[in-house]
């Protein structure tokens, strides 16, 4: 006899449950957790390096950085902040809540203002995994083309803020700002968009102000 067993559960239930627990821990510790997703080479590490070196004097910060292999990015980020851990995922193309939970071992979250999480460079897979973050930032570099959001709608749709990076190169690569904003808005209507250049510092102040507005006043 064949019987139908109703299950009706989210396939990534385990990740979702753990992400919820992480989010509760982050809220209880008053740490603002921001994750960064983008394609490889869009400037996540350079942006974070710049951001962290600019705010390190006034905030207590830490960072987790995911890559398939090497500790290069962690080495780069540790120049800007003492607490950096690399998560090497091996063959896995995204970070998940379990990796975050494990990487946080031994860190005192309540002694932090910001925890930044740099996801593996990938515009597809990270979109399915909640990491417990308060804000997910998707980066799109001026060199990538204005229609990236239309090609990878899910990652834009699950993010809260779009950062257009390498804006200092806009003219050189004939990057059309208006078209890029329109693409982002078409996929994730109403999403806040900021343009930045880690090299010249353009837009960094506005980005910092936005992140600082998320901090809970103590």
């Amino acid at each position, binding site marked *: *006899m*064949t019987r139908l067993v109703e299950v009706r559960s989210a396939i990534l239930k*385990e*990740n979702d449950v753990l992400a919820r627990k992480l989010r509760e821990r982050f809220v209880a510790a008053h740490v603002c957790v921001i994750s960064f997703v983008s394609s490889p080479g869009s400037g996540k590490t350079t942006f974070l390096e710049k951001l962290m070196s600019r705010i390190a004097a006034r905030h207590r910060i830490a960072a987790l950085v995911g890559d398939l292999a090497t500790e290069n990015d962690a080495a780069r980020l540790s120049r800007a902040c003492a607490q950096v851990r690399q998560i090497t995922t091996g063959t896995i193309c995204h970070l998940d809540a379990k990796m975050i939970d494990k990487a946080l071992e031994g860190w005192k979250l309540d002694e932090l203002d910001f925890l930044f999480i740099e996801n593996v460079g990938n515009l*597809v897979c990270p979109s*399915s995994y909640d990491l417990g973050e308060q804000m997910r930032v998707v980066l799109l570099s001026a060199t990538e083309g204005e229609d990236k959001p239309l090609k990878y709608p899910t990652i834009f749709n699950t993010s809260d803020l779009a950062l257009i990076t390498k804006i200092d190169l806009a003219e050189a690569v004939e990057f059309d700002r208006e078209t890029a904003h329109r693409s982002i808005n078409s996929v994730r209507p109403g999403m806040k968009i900021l343009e930045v250049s880690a090299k010249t510092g353009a837009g960094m102040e506005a980005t910092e102000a936005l992140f600082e507005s998320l901090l809970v006043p103590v």
Partner: protein
Amino acid sequence: MHELSIALSMIEQIEEQSEKHPGTVRSVNLRIGVLSGVDAEALRFAWEIACAGTPFAEAKLVIESIPLSVRCPRCGETHSPDIWALACPRCITPEQDILAGTELELTSLEIDT
């Protein structure tokens, strides 16, 4: 390609269920939204690899694709847009409430007892 991780999570859940409901799993029924970030064909491919050597190797994967469905918070229009153009076709309000299309759900199992 994170479909292999998804397939492994499915196997964990199917194992749990088959402990409660002994028998041979004939089919695994899923609902996958177009905005879930999971590709049905890639998942089928990953499933073949993930279920090899498990008691579910013969189980059929039945995937129901769920189109995007959104409601306009301004005019109340419900529509099913492409995932790259969400705005309301009636009043062009950009922000839309997503009603369906993000599912990534193990719906049911057919088990021979």
